[in-house]
């Protein structure tokens, strides 16, 4: 099994979720995160004092999939999250040793 992790622009979440559902993914986890890449941060001004804010709000999506689906899911996310602008984010795939469904105790691919 593989863990697909994606960092995307917040407003792209709906598009990515719909695309993954269409592909046949049954579940995913989303969190609000902050960070920076080539996009860098932005400037805020309070009573004339300028502050450089380094971190940009992003969404992290995590999906665990069967080995054979990893490439497909990765492609679906990249396509749905892309705007062509700087700051579109990244997607990476990591191996997963074991997975258990808490309710039933099923393991491996059965637990997905």
């Amino acid at each position: 099994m593989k863990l697909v992790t994606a960092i995307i622009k917040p407003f792209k979440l709906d598009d990515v979720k719909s695309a993954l559902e269409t592909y046949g993914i049954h579940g995913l986890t989303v969190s609000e995160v902050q960070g920076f890449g080539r996009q860098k941060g932005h400037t805020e001004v309070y009573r004339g004092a300028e502050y450089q804010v380094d971190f940009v709000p992003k969404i992290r999506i995590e999906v665990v999939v069967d080995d054979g689906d990893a490439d497909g899911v990765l492609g679906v996310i990249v396509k749905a999250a892309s705007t062509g602008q700087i700051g579109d984010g990244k997607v990476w795939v990591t191996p997963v040793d074991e997975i258990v469904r808490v309710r039933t105790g099923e393991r491996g691919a059965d637990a997905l």
Partner: protein
Amino acid sequence: MHVDSGDTAWVLVSAALVLFMTPGLALFYGGMIRSKNVLAMFIANFATIAIVSILWAVVAYSLAFGPDAGGHGLIGTFRFAGLGHAHQEVPGYSLTVPPLAFAAFQMMFAVITAALLTGTVAERTKFGAFLVFAALWTIVVYAPIAHWIFSPTGWLAHKGVLDYAGGNVVEIDSGASALAIAMVVGRRRGWPREVIAPHSLPITVVGAGILWFGWFGFNAGSALTAGEGASQALIGTQLAACAGLLGWCAVEKWRTGHATTLGAASGAVAGLVAITPCAGFVNSMAAIVIGLAGGVIAVYAVSMKFKGGYDDALDVVGVHGAAGFVGTLLLGVFASRNVIPGIRYDGLVDGGGLHLLGVQALAVVVTIGWAFSMTWLVATAVQRTIGLRADDAHEIEGLDTALHAEAAYDFGNVRAARMGGPGG
């Protein structure tokens, strides 16, 4: 003494309006600081209401408005201490409201003037020590200045100094005091190198709105009657706030490219501060000029702290001090006996010459000198004895949890909390 029920009703309502300004101030300030210190700001303001109100009734009212001690106009006696002899005329006034209504109205002024100082020492000051400071400060700084200027028996009032609702007594006083206590308490850790940005500007804007609303009681209530004077003061107050808001936003749009929400709120307050000494003494068009001047000067004045190296956290010096200064001097330009026949001198515009401007400048110098030096002494005394500055560890953790065992916000549901026994 003739008591007018309409005047009395207006002054009592105004007392309530002015009281409401201090919770408004807590919101105004609370939004501008980091989320870990919000409750410390709120409790400092609420407890300042409590301690200054009681102190006012016990002794400070008598020092400010009681019969003058020795006839020099320097300080009142203890005759009204404990609000005793409350049926007697307030010396120098011919009120149409019961003296107790006047004492209550003035109580709220003493409260908010002390509360303004929470803004300069924000995020790094011990709660109890600040209250001790606020109590001493009310006696040593506020009561004498109120006696000199607000009481007609005071020495500056004798010289013809005008202050409709506290441009000197409240605004310049708090501004000069803020500079002194900021220097004694010292900078927040990391200031000005690190980003110490507002955590919730919507709270700040709501607070500014409450201040604006309460300011009608502050200025129009200072007419002490419910008639033409109060009406002129109220319309002048509104126009100056609007001009201050537009002035601040215009300047910052020109300087930084953005009109900001914090700028709009700050500009309105700066306009309100500037019109405070002038409210019922100037005509409506002069009020627009004064409010605009307050807003424009304050935009520049808030940057002084970076050059001066003092951490006036929420710009009490830059907004209240600077705009109060502008308003108090512009009164020497725009005061008009066509607006209020009772005053001795016209300002420059109405052909009164430089006399009024001269005494206004004297009042500014005296207020700054007394407020700065005495505040420095009182703050230093508190710092050297019980300590005014919070511990480093408490400052880093945040004063809310470190000093008050509370957190302002709990938006998440991940919280490993369990019930402890009594006391722990």
